[in-house]
């Protein structure tokens, strides 16, 4: 590809416009998962950053501002100084990224403050972003306020080197099993959980299967010593 190609403004050559702030997490290389071998497709050199929706700008619109203001104010009253959650609004869903040390207080005010009243927690969902350096492990909480009929998402991160996140079981007892599952699958240690043990995998299982670096098994084939490589090493679209 030559430099002049970049000025080609025909629709098929235009990159989609990036609107607003974005949050970059890693890059995607090539198109067919080929590394090192002769890829004649021409797509092997393609480098695309993996960008997640970035921080939203005020005003957020609707009830989002109200909730965001109430959360910061209530957390401040409860003893969290200078809490500035990173707020992401994407496809009509609002996400508050909060510091992990603030999580117990934030969860408590989200449940108890009358302007917030998020009575129901729909559990914890872990996500492993190996390329999000320093924040590889994410714990995602979906909260529902039945009083106000609102939903928000709470996201907390922990680095791989120190996979600790405070437990929310004392605020939302429903998270008991959800945190056990997230520990089982990702190895996130929820400090303060009453009995953090494996729940789906056997008690003596090594490793945490949902992590992206968990080795997948290949399948031996009874034909001239062949094997089928594990799914993450097969040639595939990416």
């Amino acid at each position, binding site marked *: 590809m030559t430099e002049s190609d970049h000025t080609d403004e025909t629709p098929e050559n235009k990159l989609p416009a990036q609107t607003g702030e974005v949050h970059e997490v890693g890059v995607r290389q090539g198109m067919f998962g080929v590394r090192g071998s002769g890829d004649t497709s021409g797509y092997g050199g393609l480098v695309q950053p993996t960008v997640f929706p970035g921080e939203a700008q005020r005003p957020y619109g609707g009830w989002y501002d109200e909730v965001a203001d109430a959360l910061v104010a209530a957390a401040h009253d409860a003893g969290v100084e200078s809490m500035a959650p990173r707020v992401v609004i*994407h496809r009509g869903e609002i996400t508050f990224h909060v510091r992990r040390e603030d999580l117990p207080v934030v969860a408590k005010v989200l449940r108890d403050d009358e302007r917030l009243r998020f009575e129901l*927690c*729909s559990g914890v969902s872990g*996500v492993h972003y190996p390329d999000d350096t320093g924040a590889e492990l994410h714990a995602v909480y979906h909260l*529902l306020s039945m009083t106000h009929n609102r939903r928000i998402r709470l996201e907390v991160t922990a680095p791989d080197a120190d996979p600790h996140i405070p437990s929310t079981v004392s605020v939302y007892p*429903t998270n008991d099993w*959800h945190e056990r599952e997230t520990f089982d699958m990702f190895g996130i240690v929820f400090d303060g959980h009453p009995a953090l043990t494996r729940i789906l995998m056997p008690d003596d299982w090594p490793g945490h*299967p*949902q992590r992206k670096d968990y080795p997948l098994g290949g399948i031996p084939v009874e034909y001239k010593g062949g094997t089928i490589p594990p799914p993450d090493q097969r040639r595939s679209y990416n």
Partner: protein
Amino acid sequence: MSQDVYAGSSDTSEGKVFTVSGQDWDSIAEGLGEDDTERVVVNMGPQHPSTHGVLRLILELEGETVTEARCGIGYLHTGIEKNMEYRSWTQGTTFCTRMDYLSPFYNEATYVLGVERLLDIEDDIPEKATVMRVLLMELNRISSHLVCIATGGMEIGALTVMTIGFRERELVLDLFELITGLRMNHAFIRPGGVAQDLPPGALDEIRSFVALMKKRLPEYADLCNANPIFKARLEGVGHLDLAGCLALGLTGPVMRSTGYPWDLRKTQPYCGYETYDFDVQTWDTADSYGRFRIRLNEMWESLKIIEQAAERLAKLDGAPVMVADKKIAWPSQLAIGSDGMGNSLDHIRHIMGESMEALIHHFKLVTEGFRVPAGQAYVPIESPRGELGAHVVSDGGTRPFRAHFRDPSFTNLQATSVMAEGGMVADVIVAIASIDPVMGGVDR
């Protein structure tokens, strides 16, 4: 006492251990007679028929009173969420439909709604596809509630409830087979719409099913509603009030049995539920009996929705069932031939004989799939067991970066301890049946 390989006893550091299966409880009574304590720890399951699949219950008993109840789960864990990360977005429906095998359409729907939100095509889904989704989901609610009532009845000895429950469920499965080609594990609801149009004659079958169900549903009420044995076993059992439900995250019939009319179809409508006429069913006893009555009433409400959906579908004859965007819509078509359902020969002729571009397009979409913009979505829906939601995360690729299912069975099963402790051991089964856990959904 003779040594039986299946029912023996042995001394361990934890005390005397008995292995009991079937009807040989006498050996326990004999063995305990010498002991001065009545405290027994019982492992119930994981293969006990009353435990809805493979659920292990660890009960600590004081006589016949349960002092502590714990659940051991994970016996059906198959790594579906992990598997989905190595398949295309469309293939994801094939996996997630197998989670909660009694309500497959709900698993598909919540996942697909999440994918569609990330694709930003929520407003482009054809009306017919949405109505068909509603129709299938409500049929599925009936079949799921029937299994709950049937197995719940069987566990307390009401065998007729089981036989008639499965008789009616069979009718629903026949409809599924007619519409999707499969009785379960349909993978019918796809990102962008549904897999194919209604087959000819389906609406007539649905209408006659509704007419038949209206005659058959009163049988359940006649058998159970005022039956003194049934009521004695269910009333006041598995009590959990609203505060307990909220703390433990219980939704669905268990929460509605406390009198709180929370139903996502009404409170946060999706798939156009706000345009259907139906009522949210509640009860005020917060016990197993109330949950039974709610399920019975909800089947009537589902019939109302099915009738309205069938009416709309009659007017939508020939309308598209897949999104118009050819970069997302599944290209392959199915048709019914003389030997059953298979590839549409018209489509094969088109791609193999007429248009090379169509062949390339078909190949790319089926092998590579479409890309979903990076982000995350959570679109919960009201499954027969409560709030079912898929947390779908995309990194902009052709496969889900992460798909996590918040399955109501998993969450609701946490209430076993509070429902069972302090009660009789026989009531444990009733309490768990009233939660209606499906282990495929619990363990995923």
